């Protein structure tokens, strides 16, 4: 499964039917989106999105009611995309991602997960690698699914600290090569001066950060604006950068978990927030890996292989396990709602 080899995009049309025919976890998927079928007509009203080659989003429609399809409710979703971090990362840019910049994602997931659970009291949150360079968060509590648009945007704005990017961040120019670029975030000339003297002596980012912190600490009493400066810099650098428009609406489609990214061929796998730092996006299996794996498995163990569900023969197994655990939490909530709908109440 370990692979750094390039995925061959042109194979996708041949591989997708095999993947969706043999490997895609339909059973769990249905279980997820039917939400215990409370109300009973729930599943038929859902809309799904799978991506085929070339960013064509497939939005199947119910052909009996082609007119005005309005999703009745939808998970509260979050989209964190590595490209929004381009101004604070120096290893890669654009669509690229490496283990260094994945840390930004891990931090984002950690912060959002805590915020959504502790502040907003949500319990059923699914984090999914988007297949290339980002993460999607799906908040699936019944309470979240029925939020109004206004409420969604309020939640998103509450969580979004770094805002108003576009035209302001572009003004931050990181040009001086011997300075650490972070210094340009420092508004005070005197402090900047001091830092530019000591910074070149540092040899890694930890040292640099310690130096900055110490310098600011030393000057804290002089200027009021320094009180929060360390924290502010920290926030600007690592706080989750959300594509807040995705969270606001109920019409925006995110690629579904377990779909295949059309460029990288990687599966959009769910992972636990607590494992975010250990997660390696470059090791997520591609569709070709999976199909190879099934073939290998079947070849070696002919007899028993027949009885085992195909995905269990692949490296996707652990991700499906994550998904199932998430589902079992959800089913408790569904059970309670079903009782309630039938006029029972839990005492």
């Amino acid at each position, binding site marked *: 499964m370990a692979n750094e080899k390039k995925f061959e995009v042109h194979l996708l049309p041949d591989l997708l039917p095999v993947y969706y025919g043999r490997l895609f976890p339909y059973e769990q998927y249905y279980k997820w989106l039917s939400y215990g079928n409370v109300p009973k007509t729930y599943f038929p009203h859902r809309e799904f999105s799978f991506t085929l080659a070339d960013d064509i989003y497939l939005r199947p429609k119910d052909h009996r009611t082609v007119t005005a399809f309005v999703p009745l409710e939808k998970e509260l979703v979050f989209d964190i995309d590595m490209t929004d971090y381009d101004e604070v990362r120096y290893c890669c840019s654009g669509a690229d991602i490496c283990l260094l910049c994945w840390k930004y994602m891990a931090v984002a997931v950690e912060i959002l997960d805590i915020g959504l659970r*502790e*502040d*907003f*009291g*949500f319990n059923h949150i699914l984090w999914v690698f988007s297949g290339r360079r980002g993460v999607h968060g799906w908040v699936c509590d019944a*309470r979240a699914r029925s*939020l*109004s648009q*206004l*409420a969604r*945007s*309020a*939640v998103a*704005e*509450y969580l979004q600290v770094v805002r108003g990017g576009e035209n302001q961040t572009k003004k931050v120019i990181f040009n001086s090569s011997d300075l650490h670029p972070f210094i340009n975030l420092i508004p005070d000339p005197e402090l900047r001066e001091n830092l530019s003297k000591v910074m070149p002596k540092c040899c890694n980012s930890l040292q640099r950060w310690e130096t900055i912190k110490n310098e600011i600490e030393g000057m804290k009493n002089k200027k009021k604006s320094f009180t929060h400066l360390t924290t502010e810099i920290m926030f600007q650098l690592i706080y989750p950068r959300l594509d807040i428009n995705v969270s606001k609406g109920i019409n925006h489609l995110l690629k579904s978990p377990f779909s295949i990214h059309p460029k990288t061929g990687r599966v959009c796998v769910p992972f636990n927030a607590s494992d975010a730092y250990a997660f390696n996006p470059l090791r997520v299996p591609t569709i070709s890996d999976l199909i190879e794996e099934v073939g290998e498995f079947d070849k070696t163990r002919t007899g028993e292989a027949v009885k085992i569900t195909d995905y269990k023969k692949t490296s996707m197994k652990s991700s499906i396990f994550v998904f199932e655990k998430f589902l079992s939490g959800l089913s408790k909530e569904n059970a309670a709602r079903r009782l309630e709908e039938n006029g029972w109440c839990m005492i």
Partner: protein
Amino acid sequence: MSFSTGKAMITYFHTKIIMEIYSTKAFRRKQKILVESSYSSSLQFYSEPPTGNITLKEFDELSFLRAIERINLSGHAKNSEEWMQKIFEDFQKNKFFIISADKIGGTKNEDVINARRKDHLSHFILRLAYCRSEELRRWFVAQETDLFRARFVRVAKMGADFSSFLKENNLHFSQISEEELKQESVNLMMATYNINSVDQLEDKTFFKVPFVEALELVRNRKVFLKKGFAYVPSSDLVTLVSTVFRSKLSQALTATYKALPQIEDDERLYSLKDFDKRHTGSDYSQKKSASGQQITPEMLNHLSTTSFPLCMRHMHEYLNTQHHLKHGGRMQYGLFLKAAGLKLEDALKFWRSHFTKNMDVDKFEKQYAYNIRHNYGKEGKRTDYTPYSCMKIITTNVGAGDCHGCPFKHNDSNILKQKLINYQVSSDIVNEILDLTNKHHYQIACQRYFEAKHHSTIESGVNHPNQYFEESVAILHGTKTPNKAASTPNIKYQHSVLTSQSQASPSTQSQNAADISGVESMLFDDDDDMDDALFEVAMQTDVNS
């Protein structure tokens, strides 16, 4: 029949309608209304429709909403002290009845009760008018909520006790216990806006509500959140209450809208049907031009310099040099011309004359004529052929090669500046306009431009290019005295109201046009407009009486 009986008749007429509307099935829920008779609080949730007599003064409520919109547009930060002050200064200045409704404590005198009743009634009348489209509903809910909020804060400052108000409207916000307050004191101190030390928590009480009930505070990170609950300081009660107010009102408007088909066939409702169009200024879609005038292609060159707002003037000039407009421009300008009184045949002639400079007639007929006809499409079809409002134009997307949109928003300052200078706008006004556009006050900038050209103002502000046009024509033709908009046309009403009621009077159309006031000419236009005009008259007479 004297003037006053005429007025009484109108009053009676509308009273009946309103009562009947709200007692149709669609609205009949709890019929017995107790709140209304007493009006115990200055503020209302307007949960139940009014009963009893209605006089037309109640429309005044629209003026409050307008005033609030104006103040919001003029750049005062919403909910700030300054904003509050401006609003109530405005109310006081105009002697709006709402001021009396907000008296608290002591004995409630007749005035107070009457004012509250008016508040109640006019709110319900406006609902009928403002439920009709998404845009209108949004506008209405936004202004009503602002009004509610401003009044709430004001009466709270005067020392009002809200407990009975909360009880009457079934609002329960549970307070946290002493224990919980102690337990969370550090969190509350850190997370609550305006509280910076634990000492400040001493005499505070907090409500604990599901976070969706305090969205404004959540959005701005001004409250402590825990497990889905917001801890709202009692000083922010207003936010909680106005959130409920907002959501109730928006539900109620949707319900009213859904009930409309059942009640709309009632011919007596005709006057309410187009109410919004004439009073929000946001819709000029009547089949006739709203100004009742007709214009021809030959007049456009002249009119574009005297009476078109900048956006339209710009497109007209572009057309004169390039003889082409892209789709967005054809829609924006074409619909404007339609509402300004250009007939379909003339429109085709006009566009053809330009476009055929670049293409042959055949291509024009095949590719472009259809869409122009379409814009003049059959009425009753549910497509939007409404000329664009400023709001729509300002928020529109303007791409490469497009020349539609609002110049105050979509032009670079130096281009706008050059244009204004070319139009002989004096340099200090130009600077003022540029300053306004930099602060995103596009419509106010447009108003300045209007003032510079007419030495008179549009009192309600510029909301619609066609409104701009009509105001301009009215002033230039002297049918309207600059700055004294409401007072002039008053005297002739007695006559016109009464005659038009008994007959549709085409004969009077021959009157000397210059003598006819704006309202009167509408009155005599034709049968259809009779109710509209009655309505208009009644409103204005009441404003002035």
